């Protein structure tokens, strides 16, 4: 099988890349695009560290052959900061000490952001379900859940920020 060209936008930037057949999106993002904020924790769909947004949906980039994202809009953790301003989720992760070693953090934020993008004021149960595919071995999850709920509360007070995010 031959390599083929695949085009997508990554954090708003157009990309056209020559991709070997079967190459995983996580490797293409990290090694061909330099977007190393997306982590490979297991390579088998069980930890969520590689979570990115494909056309607004949170997906595991370790399970996606990169050929399949042709024509998609991809957002990674690098695209969550806008104009050097942290997203409310990122601020909340800092304020709630929801990151320790940090290896799960990008995936957590991407999974949480996908939730808040469609449900800006989720219940605690909805947060837990949205993060259920993301493993964190450091924090014990409570600070992360608290951070997502705190971010939602901030968004509720600042509808303009929600629209901008």
């Amino acid at each position, binding site marked *: 099988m031959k390599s083929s060209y695949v085009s997508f936008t990554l954090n708003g930037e157009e990309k056209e890349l020559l991709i070997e057949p079967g190459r995983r999106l996580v490797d293409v993002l990290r090694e061909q695009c330099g977007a*190393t904020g997306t982590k490979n924790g297991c390579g088998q769909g069980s930890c969520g560290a590689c979570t990115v947004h494909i056309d607004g949906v949170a997906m595991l980039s370790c399970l996606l052959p990169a050929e399949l994202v042709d024509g998609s809009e991809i957002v990674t953790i690098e695209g969550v900061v806008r104009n050097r301003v942290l997203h409310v989720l990122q601020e909340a992760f800092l304020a709630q000490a929801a990151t320790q070693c940090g290896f799960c953090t990008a995936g957590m934020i991407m999974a949480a952001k996908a939730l808040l993008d469609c449900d800006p004021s989720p219940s605690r149960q909805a947060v837990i379900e949205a993060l259920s595919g993301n493993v964190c*071995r450091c924090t014990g999850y409570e600070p992360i859940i608290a951070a997502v709920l705190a971010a939602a509360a901030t968004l509720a007070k600042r509808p303009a920020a929600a629209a901008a995010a």
Partner: protein
Amino acid sequence: MARILEDVFTAERAGSFQAIGRALPRIDAHSHVTGATRYYADRIFPNLLHAVMARSEHHHALIRHVDLSAAQAVKGVARILTHKDVPNNWYTILKLIGLGPDEEPVLAEDRVLYRGEPIVAILADTEAAAREAAAKVKVEYEELPAVLDVETAILPGTPAIKPHGSNVFVYEGRDHFHVHCGDTEAAFREADHIFEHSYQSSPIEHAPVETTGAIAVPEPGGRYTLHSNTQAAFFTLDNAALILGLPFRQLRVVGGTVGGGFGGKVDVIVEPIAVLGAMLTGRPVKYSFSRGEEMQVSSPRAAERIRIKDGVAADGRIIARDVRILVDAGAYSRHSPYGTIKAAAHMPGPYTVPNVTINAWCVYTNRTPSSAMRGFGVTIGDFALEVQMDRIARELGRDPFELRLQNAYRDGDLKAHRKTVEGAALVEVIQAAAERIGHPLSPECRAMSSCQRT
């Protein structure tokens, strides 16, 4: 924010805490939430080779023959490393603190002692090619009986799996580590109650979200830069240099950013192979555990078997404690001989017991080598001790807080290993815990202090 007891430990306090009692941000938190933190694998190198191990399929076997021809034929394979390529193949990680002998091979020679033990390392252009070739290494084994249980391992007549002829680490000529003070047997005869219980734990895997790994990069002048997620950069540098026969100055370790360690990234397993690969090919080499390898072959917390026998006076004083500890080191020492010393020295726990006997064995079995993990050597012992304390309290109809306070060690007491206790805090911690949960304590217990006995 937790309240800090201002009235205790005034000497340590000296009025100048900078961080204790304050919530300070981690210095790396901002880069964590933006994805900017660079872990070792975030360093991308062109022309990188990937190392993947062919591993033992048996718990215990002789290696009769290794056929590399099919592996060599896989497209993209650049080189295959065997034990013959490793300058000093036999090592032991704690030789840096004077524990010996060298007893673990970097790559297996004529035998394997645990399932998953590395035999040869494939270096290939892609990870997929390296995995394919590793699966094509043909090893002919002669299976040997496996010793998988610590109690069996130390029975007379059980075959010795280690070349030194037994299944235990030898401490200065003794087959186990021993601590005693007082006369435990006499005290058992005087005791009003005897409590004897056994406890056991399983191996526990750290399961960091970032698996263990390293990238070795050749530099001009015969030097190598090692990007690693080790928790012990200098330990790694020294052990890797000794294994490779390199002067220490030729290795530079770049690390300190660890995606979860918990003690699991203290052994020196991936780095020597990565550097050796870089030395022999002149290319950068990455050796990273798959999730499956992290679960199977990264060293877990040792399983332990602990038997505690206590002699207790009618008033609740523990007057004798005899502890037998078996630590399952798995097939090789790693940090377990040291963990076993810690386990022995930790007994009889934070309690002052006048008559103590401790016997601790560091036992080899045909299991994955165990090693460091958060308080290793101590944590499982604490589990056993505190369950034992609760059992004693229950049997004697005593309040478990007060039984602990009655037996708690205080400053100036002598530990079983004859060190004088300093800076004890158990009394104050129990008092504070009782207060937090609204558990009533007697006036005498509330008045107790670690600093003085009244």
